[in-house]
């Protein structure tokens, strides 16, 4: 066993349960941030308004990533 004798292979599922939502959330947040900063560079005078709304918009992908983290922690509690 590559992970040592004591470790369950189910831990891979735990790692993926965190990693896949985190990667997807990162892609989504990257798109949002990129678009918002493009807009800010074009029109610096509305950057305050865009920045505030960006934080709200970032909360939604963030929540999905966090659900993955919670799932991973719960799974880890089940396995170990």
């Amino acid at each position: 066993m590559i992970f040592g004798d004591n470790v369950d292979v189910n831990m891979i599922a735990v790692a993926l349960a965190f990693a896949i939502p985190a990667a997807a959330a990162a892609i989504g947040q990257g798109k949002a941030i990129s678009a918002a900063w493009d807009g800010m560079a074009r029109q610096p005078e509305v950057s305050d308004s865009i920045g505030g709304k960006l934080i709200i918009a970032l909360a939604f992908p963030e929540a999905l990533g966090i659900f993955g983290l919670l799932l991973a922690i719960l799974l880890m509690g089940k396995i170990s």
Partner: protein
Amino acid sequence: MIFFELKPEEKSHDSHAENSHDAHGDSHDSHHGCEHPDYALLNFFNWKGIGPEGGTVHTYVEEQPWMPSFWKCSGPGSSTPMGEINMTMAFNTFIVSGILIALFKKGGQKISFIPGKIQLIAEFWVESLTDFFSAFGGEYVVRKYFGLLGAYFTFILTLNLWGVIPGFHSPTADINTTLAFAVVGVICSLVIGLKESGLKHIIHHWMGEPKPGDNLAKAIGAMLLLPLEITAQFARMVSLALRLYGNIYGGDVVLAVFVVLLADLAVKIWIPLPLQLPVVLLHILASVIQAIVFTALVSVYISGFCSHHHDEEHDHDN
């Protein structure tokens, strides 16, 4: 913050009490019996052999002599007539709310034209929060319902940052606290919407605002959109609760893992370095952002129910 200490030897469980004479060999298995998710990750790392030799990671809330007796039950919770509650989180919440109530009561007690120190801080706080959240919910909603929104922001921010102080726990790292906040927030937005716009406008809004003669659009709205919107209210509660809980709890766990890993390093090189400091700063940043997000979302929900009423009023004025 999840607290723990590194001990050379763990108190063996009841089942191991008989063969305690060879405790050094056997007691390593005993901490697998703890099934609370708080301990899972820490035990996992210890189990892998990360951490000092023979060290056992466990929470020490129940072992602090200076804590009051009803605070000593951490983890699974203590049973009350209303069910099991986590007394650690409840006690921390009471401390924080007591401090905040005392502070703001003192700030608003003697309102003078030339403000004192606490009144100045309170006025600055209220004014800057009103300006900040007006960008999300509109100035009308934020000024009118600042009692709810400002209390949400102040309370959640303090609760989030409370766990950074050594010796205390963030009550928002418990799903019960955040679920209570979320349920109250969504129900308040519904009640405010009923008060401001009325049930008819809300139903009309949820049906996709069909034109008066359009029966097809009305039927589709009633059959498809209305159930979706009603389900969305529950989804709002769950997502508000899980977002806050997950961020704070996840931050605590990451912090705990870093401390465990770095404690190993500190034991090896005999120099205790606070290398988890960047993670603490990140946790503080996340705490502030999550408080902002929660409050802004509640204000957006409220203004979503009020906007219809306001547009119409505006039209009438014009």
